């Protein structure tokens, strides 16, 4: 991977293991994420689904699914703010470090608890309800543990260091490393000193990104926002015969 060669002069200060964990693994995961999605979208439209199991079990899902999804939206928004926006920017618009921290801990805790509770219920029904368990496919068996690990590590790190602990400013370490990956100036040294829980959370998150295109998580990209604007009635013609006269099949089925 050319990513490794891109690592800056500071590479001398970090070990080979750190380079592997904080530069190579993230880039490989992101590459799998991108290529995997392109491959899946082109090759497996039929498998691209939420894979709903509400038909088989709805009592746990009634609470678990909305809790998980709404919590996840808030958590993702929090991560975007915390990871993508440098602390100098928030201070420039007049948000003090203390105010930011307080808001992040409170909002993050609410979102995190909702997401963990929801995911817990979804995992519980998957394990305890025999019908749902037998409908669990291989990709789910990878996704549920990986997602759970990421979420639990994340909320544990926050709880241990920022809610009950002395407070850890991840924006000057983890966030710097994360942004460095995307501007192609990896800074593995920024995360090397971070607490273990944050490091593990970051690693499982990248593994989750790598697994993403091969699981039901792809339904995230099909969020039907366009539905708000489209006409109610959809008419379609039978597969156009002239579209591909030389080929034996037209591109889209008319089912």
């Amino acid at each position, binding site marked *: 991977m050319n990513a490794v060669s891109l690592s800056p002069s500071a590479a001398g200060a970090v070990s080979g293991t750190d380079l592997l964990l904080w530069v190579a693994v993230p880039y490989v995961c992101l590459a799998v994420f991108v290529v995997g999605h392109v491959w899946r979208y082109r*090759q*497996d*439209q*039929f*498998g*691209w*689904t*939420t*894979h*709903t*199991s*509400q*038909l*088989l*079990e*709805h009592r746990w*899902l*009634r*609470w678990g*699914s*909305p809790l*998980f*999804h*709404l919590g996840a939206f808030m958590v993702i928004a929090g991560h975007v703010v915390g990871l993508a926006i440098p602390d100098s920017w928030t201070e420039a618009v007049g948000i003090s470090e203390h105010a930011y921290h307080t808001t992040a801990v409170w909002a993050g805790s609410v979102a995190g608890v909702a997401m963990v509770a929801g995911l817990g219920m979804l995992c519980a029904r998957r394990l305890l309800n*025999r*019908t749902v368990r*037998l*409908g669990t*496919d291989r990709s789910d068996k990878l996704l549920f543990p990986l997602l759970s690990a990421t979420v639990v590590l994340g909320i544990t790190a926050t709880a241990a260091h920022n809610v009950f602990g002395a407070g850890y400013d991840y924006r000057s370490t983890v966030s710097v490393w994360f942004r460095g990956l995307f501007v192609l100036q990896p800074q593995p040294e920024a995360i090397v000193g971070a607490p273990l829980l944050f490091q593990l959370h970051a690693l499982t998150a990248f593994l989750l990104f790598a697994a993403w295109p091969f699981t*039901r998580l792809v*339904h995230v990209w*099909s969020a*039907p*926002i*366009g*539905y*708000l604007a*489209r006409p*109610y*009635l*959809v*008419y*379609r*013609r*039978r*597969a*156009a*015969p002239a579209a591909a*006269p030389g080929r*034996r*099949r*037209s*591109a*889209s*089925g*008319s*089912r």
Partner: protein
Amino acid sequence: MRVMAQIAMVMNLDKCIGCHTCSVTCKQTWTNRTGVEYAWFNNVETKPGVGYPRRYEDQEHWKGGWMLDRRGRLVLRSGGRVKRLLSLFSNPDLPSIEDYYEPVTYDYDNLVNAPAGKDMPVARPRSVLTGEPTAITWGANWEDGLGGAPENAGGDPNLTGEWAEKVKFEFEQTFLFHLPRLCEHCLNPACVSACPSGAMYKRVEDGIVLVDQDKCRGWRMCVTACPYKKVYVNHVTGKAEKCTFCFPRIEAGQPTVCSETCVGRLRYLGLLLYDADRVGEAASTPDEKDLLDAQRGVFLDPRDPDVIAAAREAGIPEDWLDAARRSPVYDLVMRYRVALPLHPEYRTLPMVWYVPPLSPVLDAVDAAGGNQDDPDHVFAAVTRLRIPLEYLAELFSAGDADVVAGVLMKLTALRSYMRERTLGEDGDEAVLKAVGLTAQEATDLHRLLAIAKYEDRYVVPAAHKEDAAALTAMEERCPVESSGEPAEAGGRRVMLGIPTLRRKTTGGHA
């Protein structure tokens, strides 16, 4: 005027004997796969009864179809677009598997592999969902022939109003008839309108409503929106599936499987031309009881020169226009007006219509001490039929008993007249005149309903020749297979998920 053609169906309920051949052949053709064991694209219900899934007609509960809001606008009963997106995570109005039934298979292995013993080995039922032994407590037609009616039939959502008390009270004088149901391929399909992915669509050429299996993302809003509950979730593939009106057969000019195999010869297939521009207006008709006429107003006369010109302009081929003129569905729906839609009050403008059942009317005349040949006696008997007019009206005319009575009197007059003719008499044309039929029309209607020749029942024009290339390609692939490259070329055929675990658990146990 935007002319579109629709392949539509009419069923003559008088002739349905409830043999379920349509359901079984449909299942063998379309839903004998894992994940849709519980799905019946075609089923036959006993009425009165709760139906399948249980009480599906109770739209206060299931929120299917359309309704008018306070300002008279047509809205989906399950809510607006924003509400629908907010309930993506958990759909509050989705039937669960208990509302259908737990599909089962049997331990057939045990019949041949059981060790020698003094008792006959039996094949015990096993849940297909859990692989474990289970008790069968419900099915797609649990109430066949009023089975369990004392406990269940009172749950029929159509039994409302004062007259319903009478039905229950005189249960020893009970009645039943069979109601075969399939997707209505509506002009104003609620399922299509509710699909967040835009995966469901109505075909321009023949009006068949289909689910694009590649575009469906499993948001399951279609199941809620369909008031007839004829869209099913495949719990293995995570996609919605529904009656396809056997489109590969229709395109080849053949009747659907349910029609082809109908033992009672009660199904009719034919084209109806309709004005797509008037669909929304008709569905928004303020009074539910006017919906029937509003829907008839959407249909176009295939002999009208203006309609023919507009249809040509819309690209409808000549052989289709000819088929529309010969359509038995047009005759039953528009010319003789003896067919009625199922639950027009759902405002989806359904396209599978029914000739309501005429219970043994001449027996009723005799029982009342009347003269079978006296039209007054015969017509009076219609109002005293075992099947209450009010009940039929709940099903077929949004509660308007006069509409149903009109159709039944027409059928009664036809029966009375043709009976006289068959017995060698002249036939009393006064009876016919009273219901607006001429002698020639009566003969034609009798031929259509009673003689019911294959070529009269099914007038299905093949898809047009210019599309032949595309259709050839379609024919070569399995309708439930993923679209795209030929399987033999790329080897990237996407198989339907067969959960081997489930299959394994069903065998090997004693």
